[in-house]
């Protein structure tokens, strides 16, 4: 049965059945019919991702603790951090919107970062932690709901809206949100789940079609 040495791959977007081809580092293979990216070859992507994830986690903590912006109107000052903003909306009886903001800017990024550390740190020590398939599946399904970069743009728009009525003082968290946006973008481009899957043996080998 196993005449061809290379495994089959089906395009996620058009389902065209193709055979994998070997790539050299930095190359990407694309579907021959619809042009979607099939897979990339990026050696040491896991180490690089781990470094970026650790940096992003640090920035994430700073971004959540310190105030994002503070304003001053006629001597009165007010500042808010991210959680303060979420709870202010909750107190205004905008619970569904407040919940949506909490999930997309705090909960999902926090889960994403901690799961990645949990997966990547043991892999670096050549251990495969239990439950990786489940974690990777959760990571994949929550990924669209982390919206730190949109929130960053939201901060900038708010900044412009406020400057004509009051004096605005950017807080520490504003800069860390900027850094976090860049770090998360770098994590998204360097993380290659295929490399993690390569560590997982298929128990039921006959199920996979060669």
């Amino acid at each position, binding site marked *: 049965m196993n005449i061809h040495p290379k495994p*089959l*791959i*089906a395009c*996620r*977007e*058009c*389902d*065209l*059945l193709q055979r994998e081809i070997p790539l050299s580092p930095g190359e990407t293979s694309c579907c*021959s*019919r*619809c042009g979607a990216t099939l*897979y990339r070859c990026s050696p040491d992507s896991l180490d690089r991702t781990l470094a970026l994830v650790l940096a992003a986690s640090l920035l994430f903590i700073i971004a959540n603790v310190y105030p994002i*912006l*503070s304003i001053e*109107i006629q001597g*009165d000052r*007010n*500042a*808010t951090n991210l959680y*303060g*903003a*979420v709870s*202010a*909306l909750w107190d*205004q009886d*905008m619970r*569904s*919107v*407040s919940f*949506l*903001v909490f999930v*997309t800017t705090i909960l999902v990024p926090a889960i994403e970062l901690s799961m990645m550390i949990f997966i990547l740190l043991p892999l670096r020590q050549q251990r495969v932690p239990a439950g990786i*398939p489940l974690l*990777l*599946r959760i990571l*994949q399904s929550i990924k*669209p*709901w982390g*919206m730190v970069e*949109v929130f960053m*743009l*939201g901060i*900038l*728009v*708010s900044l*412009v*809206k*406020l400057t004509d*009525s*009051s004096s605005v003082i950017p807080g520490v968290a504003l800069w860390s949100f900027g850094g976090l946006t860049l770090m998360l973008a770098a994590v998204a481009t360097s993380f290659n*789940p295929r490399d993690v*899957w390569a560590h*997982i043996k*298929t128990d039921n*080998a*006959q*199920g*996979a*079609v060669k």
Partner: protein
Amino acid sequence: MNRTGVSAGSMGLCSCHACGLVSRAESIFGTAHCPRCDARIHIRKPDSVRRCWALLIAAYILYLPANLLTIMETGSLVNYRKDTIMSGVVHLWKTGSWAISAIVFIASIIVPLFKLIALTLLLVSVKRRSTWWPNQRTRLYRMVELVGRWSMLDIYVVTILAALVQIHSLATVRAGSGAIAFGAVVVLTMFAAQEFDPRLIWDPLTKESEL
């Protein structure tokens, strides 16, 4: 680029949506599971078109209150104003912040409208088993997935302003009920885009090549 070709589905093969492993979709009566990662596998997302329509219609209905109701109330000693999404954009434009006004206009007006129209177009074309421009339709789907999240912009702006501008009687900002409807439109269209299976675009082509 060749338009036709053998799809995994037509060979009875199924690629896992989580790990990408291609396996034979066994157990027709029960649910099939991926041999590597144990995720449920389907040749096509189950009930994709119907679920996508349901979410899309709900989004269309909520699109009206999202645009007509107040999204933000601003009060200060000298004036009081209620803003819908569009009046917020116009206000920004009039006060001279053209760039920001354009960004908000694209993120809050153009993007949701584009998503609704694009998904409708994709669903209708799939229903009619159209073989028309599959590459461009796949690209359209990719764009819908890519830009969808940016509509959350207005929700975040309202959140930050409502928390920050709370200076006794001098100035207050409150979120309006339009924000709930608008948030719901964004969430519903994101779910609709996830339910849609782009492989359905290519299925009619595969069938034709077999004949």
